């Protein structure tokens, strides 16, 4: 199994959910994050002062997937969160050693 983590623009959440649902993903986890990549380095004027800001709000979307589906889901995530501009974010995959559905205790692929 794989865990796919995407750090992407908050406004892309709806698109991602639609994309994943279309592909048939049954669940996901979302949380708030912030960060910077190459898009760093805005100057914002507020009440006469100039501020450099680089931590921008992002969301973290995590999807647990079987090894077979992982690649496709990665593609879905990228496709649905891409705008073509800096700040689009990162997606990465790690190997999952074990996964369990709490309700039933099912393990492995059955747990997803």
């Amino acid at each position, binding site marked *: 199994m794989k865990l796919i983590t995407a750090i992407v623009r908050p406004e892309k959440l709806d698109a991602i959910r639609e994309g994943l649902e279309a592909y048939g993903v049954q669940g996901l986890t979302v949380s708030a994050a912030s960060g910077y990549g190459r898009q760093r380095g805005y100057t914002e004027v507020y009440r006469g002062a100039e501020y450099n800001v680089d931590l921008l709000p992002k969301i973290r979307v995590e999807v647990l997937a079987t090894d077979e589906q992982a690649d496709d889901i990665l593609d879905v995530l990228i496709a649905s969160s891409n705008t073509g*501009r800096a700040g689009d974010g990162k997606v990465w995959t790690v190997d999952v050693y074990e996964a369990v559905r709490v309700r039933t205790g099912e393990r492995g692929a059955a747990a997803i």
Partner: protein
Amino acid sequence: MDFTAGLVWLLVASAFVLFMTPGLAFFYGGMTRAKAALNMMMMSFIAIGTVTLVWVLWGASMSTSNTDNFFEIFANPFSHFGLHNFTDPADLLHVGYAVTFAIITVALISGAIADRAKFSAWTLFTPIWATLVYAPMAYMVWGGGLFSSTGWFGQTFAPVIDFAGGTVVHINAGVAGLILVLIIGNRKGFGKDPNHRPHNVPLVMLGAAILWFGWFGFNAGAAATVQQAGLIWINTLVAPAAAMLGWLIVERIRDGHPTSLGAASGVVAGLVAITPACANVSPLGAIALGVAAGVASALAVGLKFKLGYDDSLDVVGVHLVSGIIGTVAIGFLATPTQGPAGLFYGGDATQLVAQSLAALCSIVFTGVMTFIIAYPIHKLMGFRISERQEVAGADLSLHAETAYEFGVGAHGGSFQPLHDLITGKVSSEAADEASVPGKESVQA
């Protein structure tokens, strides 16, 4: 001239009523999503600015009785231009009281178009509407115009009883809100997106509390005698109390739980309903009126989803509906001691007919006039922000601010990713750097 007790009360009452408009800003602001809360409040604040200027310059003149009027619809705007030519020592106090009504009526409208109105369009709309709709309505009902005892309508049917503004304020604002919704359309996700729930209910309750407090000035400020003031005070307490209970009972039965948003809304509905009737019904009548308004508005606010128009913060469901109820109820509930008796107190149907017709007339007048004002604005400059601005939130996209910044964590400032959206400055290099899909230009 030395102070008199009545004028001191007027002075105090005027401050109370002015306080209501920020109160409304909190009431409305708490009800929107967090990302459009400031914009919502700004619509009320800017109305204080623009309407005050209008009123001082020509509005007061337009709504004040004098011999020189336009078909009993409004008075000469220039006779007291800039508040000149007032001779009675108390005249400025009366103007001060009157302007607070003009301000809040305009501000009330904004609740219908939460989250999506262009701030510049709204800023333009407010002084025009105050001039062409509010000032005439005030003149017609209170200034000696059409609906007053000397006007054609008043003489033909009966002078309208509207002590503190059922037609002038609430029906007026409610209709205007409805027209604006029809022109600018629904919020994205209307009726589907659960994030449209209020973002800060304590703020809503604070707004309701300030409104209620100020409403004692609103209703009782013009009381002529101690008896009348006492009656109005009691009614202004009793009707909203009863309406709150009415609203909560509807919720308890229909949804299984009484909500605090319902309590706050019920209070406002009761206040709206008692506004025209406050000097003409008994405390028991006020209870009945309150319950009726609370129940009716509680049921009405759900209708918008069925009818499909996004009156976002229920200006129609609360102000128009309860405003009509209060205005018409006078025909039934008016006690004979304060004027013509209503049907339930042995009067005939004259007053009921007059009240109903006046409500109808003001609906038509305001509807038409508001359309005439707002539609060209919408066509010429757009009354609505872009979808992208709406998704980003009106606060960020129009005001370059966010309402809150609690971040214990790590956010360097949540208003940044929309840099170009805010500033409208997208250099070609910045366009690449900026996290922005399009180059839409932005106007607040």
